[in-house]
């Protein structure tokens, strides 16, 4: 009885909060005409059909995206898949360039949205804040459960990053125990360490994990092979680091909302682009041609 009434209270309070926020929300946006005019069109447009839109979108995500004319790609700064050249405002990279081509094939504009928190990706998808997660995403069981994923397009693995001077001591999985690890929170690398029973400090992203090793705050990091190839070693910002053990083999895929028909559209687009040679051409530009999966 006690429990039930406290739950009821919680519900009431939550409701009161939501209502008050909603009330203030209306207030804020009507006063807040300073909000960027570009965006204010979107909620109004979709607002009209908001009641039914949930169902319809589940029926055809493709029609939804083509209707609004933009494909919003959720990603993070992750060379060589998605990054900006210094001084430039344009996202480039293997994933970014292919996303542009995919959007073009759908007849829509592409918009890149840099996510604050990689963990929020499925929430961003479900709430339609973004339309696709396309950012060197490893196809883990978690990811497959949360979204509709494409056929794998790229090979990857998790590798251990250590200072080059100590690299010869850490060539086997056994040698890793006892090292102070830094790894991106919730990443495929974290999963590997969990499986090995090695504890670690969770970081916001892979770059921060590498920074930990470079600064000496941690002894080793686990990051994606593709990223390590582009970010670490001679000729990069981290000439004193190197990578040794590869912990696993994995594949990259692209994620859409559950039940979305964009997944099939993507798979078809990718096969065609691969056959036409576009995929390998772009991959070669960014030095990932060895990892691309043959279609």
């Amino acid at each position: 009885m006690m429990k039930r009434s406290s739950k009821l209270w919680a519900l009431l309070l939550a409701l009161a909060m939501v209502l008050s926020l909603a009330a203030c929300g209306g207030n804020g946006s009507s006063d807040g005409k300073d909000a960027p005019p570009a965006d204010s069109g979107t909620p109004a447009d979709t607002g009209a059909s908001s009641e039914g839109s949930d169902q319809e979108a589940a029926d055809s995500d493709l029609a939804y995206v083509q209707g609004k004319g933009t494909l919003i790609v959720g990603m993070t700064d992750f060379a060589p898949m998605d990054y900006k050249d210094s001084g430039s405002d344009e996202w480039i990279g293997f994933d970014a360039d292919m996303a542009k081509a995919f959007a073009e094939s759908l007849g829509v504009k592409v918009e890149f949205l840099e996510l604050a928190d990689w963990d929020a990706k499925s929430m961003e998808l479900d709430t339609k804040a973004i339309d696709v997660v396309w950012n060197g995403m490893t196809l883990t069981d978690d990811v497959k459960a949360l979204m509709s994923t494409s056929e794998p397009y790229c090979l990857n693995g998790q590798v251990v990053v250590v200072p080059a001077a100590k690299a010869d001591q850490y060539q086997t999985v056994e040698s890793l125990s006892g090292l102070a690890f830094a790894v991106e929170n919730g990443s495929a690398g974290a999963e590997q360490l969990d499986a090995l029973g090695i504890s670690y400090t969770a970081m916001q992203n892979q770059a921060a994990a590498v920074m930990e090793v470079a600064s000496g705050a941690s002894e080793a990091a686990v990051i994606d092979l593709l990223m390590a190839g582009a970010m670490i070693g001679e000729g990069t910002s981290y000439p004193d680091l190197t990578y040794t053990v590869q912990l696993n083999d994995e594949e990259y895929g692209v994620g859409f909302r559950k039940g979305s028909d964009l997944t099939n559209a993507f798979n078809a687009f990718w096969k065609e682009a691969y056959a036409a040679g576009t995929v390998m051409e772009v991959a070669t530009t960014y030095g990932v041609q060895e990892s691309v999966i043959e279609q």
Partner: protein
Amino acid sequence: MLIPVTLSLLEGMGTTLKLFFLTLLFALPLGLVISFGSMSRFAPLRWLIQTVVWIIRGSPLMIQILIIFYGPGLLFGLPLLPRFTAALVAFVVNYACYFSEIYRGGIQSVPRGQYEAGQVLGMTKPQIFFKVTLLQVIKRIVPPMGNEFITLVKDTSLVRVISVYELIWMGESYIKKGLIWPLFYTAVFYLILSGILTILLNQMEKKLDYFQ
């Protein structure tokens, strides 16, 4: 390197400043309305307002930002507010609640005798509030308000959780390029802004010093 970094941080600073000023613009009047509600003689309204203030002040602003941005989509499948608007709504509501308590403290600190004197002179309630109470309230709330303003400057960094690209975000993005100092450098921008605010608030206090 310093100049391009400064320029890109200034871009983030623009978003920070926009959020700061718009929050003040809407939260200052809204706070006054809420403070009247929390002093209302109509008990249910008073309780409702006090509960809302308790929830808003008692839960982390970061959670409120996440709820306002993702909540409509997650709970009801509604389209989302634009990111900046959602952040602004969260800040306005949150700061209005804090301001309301400061207003309430200021209003209730004016001796009741003055109100009664006004009544004896035949003044109406609004007349008493605007001509007698208000200026004294303003004078008394300047120091605690200043505190909140300066907290607000730094709280703006929370909006990065919903990918609003403010100052700290811009500083942090350099970590991926192997530079950590731009992140620490952002502190200088916050210091300058809160320094300017401190000077302005001190001047305001001095101006209000002509009466006791």
